[in-house]
Structure formats: C-alpha cells, structure tokens
C-alpha cells in the first residue's frame, strides 16, 4: 500500500511539474484565491498535502479551482498550486468512468446566452 501511495504522489508531481519543496508557506496563494471560501482544502494546503503524500483527500475535492492563475502569478517561489490541482483532477477524470461532467448533462445546463467557450472549457477541466 505504501508503494502505491508514493506512486500516486509521484504521478501528481510528474504531471504537474511542480516542485512542492520550493513552498515557503507564506499563504499568498490562498490569500489570492477567489474560491478560498468554497474549498475544503485551500491552495497552500494542496501544496503541503501533496508533499506529505496525502492525495486521496485532495482527489475528493478539486472542483472549486477556477484556474484563474492568481495563485500562479502571485507565488513568490514559482510553485504553481493551480498546476497541482489540475494534476489531481486529472488523476480522477483519467480513470475509466470517472468524468465529472458527462455529455448527457449538457442539454439541461444550456441557456440561450451560454457561450460555447463555457462548455468547451468545462469539458477540458472535468472530463476525458
């Protein structure tokens, strides 16, 4: 089991390209995050939870990130928490049958002004 855990962490690190050890815990990412109040785990927590190998909990809770790049822009150490969140999301949606958004759901979500851009980007973020 231990071997599988560390493999999961390595996958997240490899897919994201993030070096979590550069983080100096300043919290600027979470201070900048427009979804902070909505998240079970905040951007700075993502960083140290990945460092500890605590991936399972994060995999249950990665859909509130807006990918707005505020944390990426403002991190003084170039850690890119948003890339970690994306990698963790991918760990879930790349599993067979684990798409967060399915094509069948789309018709009910449409309104007359909804731009195609919203659908395309949601599929990119939520599905494989």
């Amino acid at each position, binding site marked *: 089991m231990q071997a599988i855990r560390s493999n999961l962490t390595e996958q997240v690190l490899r897919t994201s390209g993030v070096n979590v050890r550069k983080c100096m815990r300043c919290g600027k990412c979470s201070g900048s995050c427009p979804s902070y109040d909505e998240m079970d785990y905040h951007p700075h927590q993502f960083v140290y939870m990945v460092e500890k190998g605590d991936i399972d909990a994060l995999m249950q809770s990665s859909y509130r990130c807006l990918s707005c790049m505020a944390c990426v822009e403002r991190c003084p150490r170039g850690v890119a928490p948003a890339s970690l969140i994306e990698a963790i999301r991918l760990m879930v949606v790349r599993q067979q049958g684990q798409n967060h958004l399915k094509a069948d759901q789309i018709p009910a979500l449409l309104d007359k002004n909804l*731009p195609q851009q919203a659908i395309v980007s949601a599929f990119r973020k939520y599905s494989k």
Partner: protein
Amino acid sequence: MIFSYYPGCTLKTKAKDLDIYARLSAQALGITLDELPEWQCCGAVYPMAKDEIATKLSSVRSLISAKEQGNDLITLCSACHNVMKQVNNDMQSDVVIAEKINNYLQPGVPYHGETRVIHYLEMLRDKVGFDVLAQKVKNPFTGRKIAAYYGCVLLRPASVMQMDDPENPVIMENFIRAIGGEPVIYPYRNECCGGYVTLENNELVGKNSVKVLASAEQNGAEMILTACPLCLYNLDKNNADHKVPVIYFTELLAEALGVKNEGEKENAGN
C-alpha cells in the same frame, strides 16, 4: 498591415459582436485580418499538465498555419489568446512536448513556436499605436467613465503572456483614453468572474461576478469593457442589481471609429 486572424469557437456563435466589430474596426484602421483556413477550436483553457499532448494539437495546427501564411497571429477572445500563447511557449521551451507534437503532426518543417501571437489590444498598442488610433476617432467617448475588466487569463501568467503588468495593467485603460473616455480604476478589474464553473456552480460564479460589478459601479463606472465572452456572460447574468452594461471593447472601438452601423447591419442579417 496584414495579420493572420484566429477568431475561435464562440466568436462565430454567441459572441459575434466581438468578432464583427473587430473586423470592421481593423478595416477602418487599414489592417487586413486574414482568417486562418480551417482553424479548430483551441479548447478554451490551457492544458497545464506536462503530459497533456493531444489537447494542445489543435492550437499547434493554427500556429503552424499562421507560420505558413508568414504573418503574426491575432487573437481576440481572452481564452483563445491564453491558450495560443501558452501552447506556443510550450513549443518554444518544452522539448518533450514539442518533440511529441512534431512527431505526431509531422509538419514539413518541425514547429518550435516561430509564430508571434498578438492580442488585438496589443495590435492596437504596438502596431497601430494608441496615439494614431486617437487621431482616427470620429466619435470620442468624451466624459464617459469606462471600466476595463481584464478577468483572469488575458494577462496571466505574465511570464508567458508578456502583454502587461498583471497586477497593475494599463493596456485597456490606455485604449479607453485613446477613444476619448475616462478609465475607471477599480480593485476587482483583474479578479476572476468564476469562468467555466458557471456550468455547475452558479452560486460561486454569482458571488465573484457581483464583486466585480459592485466594485466597478462603486468607482463610478458607466460601463464595463471585456475581451472575453465568458466574462461577459457571467457578469451579465449577475447584473440584476447593478445594471452596468458589459460590452465588448471592439464594439466601443467600432463606435469610436464611426463604423458601428455597418456591424449592426451585418448582425441583423444573421
């Protein structure tokens, strides 16, 4: 001046205004926008993962197409712009991604990010010049208080986008000055409206969008300008208590240049 032009999916459908007014304005400024043949949707969000290859292919095809035309590539939608510039940066700087994509696409000559991607606003600033634009304005927005809304990905990450200071940008404010208006500086102009999460969490997007609208309004904005169809949608949808019109910057440009009526005719024909 001739540029290759990438409109993207939404500019052909729900955001026709953004596209039509951009074309008419370009024409009025003596610029030819040559739409890429058979372009594909860029995917609307940049695939951040290092092992995502297939999701970058459509953008690379457009970038190669512009290279073949021998022109700089103009983008307009904030999302397309972000994806194009970031994927282009991968092709320049990420050896593994560039190798895999070139191996798959087998272009005659391997592509390594030679195309220059320029946002329409950058074209106005760097190719036309805001001073020259100002001289061509027929209907100035004198005395009008106009707020620029940058949103999230037009400027970020700045290391790749290299368009303006992402924390204290001036490009849209200088555009507003060029068309005779008075820019409104407000704190939420570069904070996210909620983006694609609109599809599953209206509440979250509502909170973010209302913060932007309220912030602009409290600082005296009569209208808000954007380059992004999704920002416009999210702000409009949550505008019930604020009623600050949210408008594509190209529409104001066309009005300033005196060519807006032609766009209205074109739109009525659709």
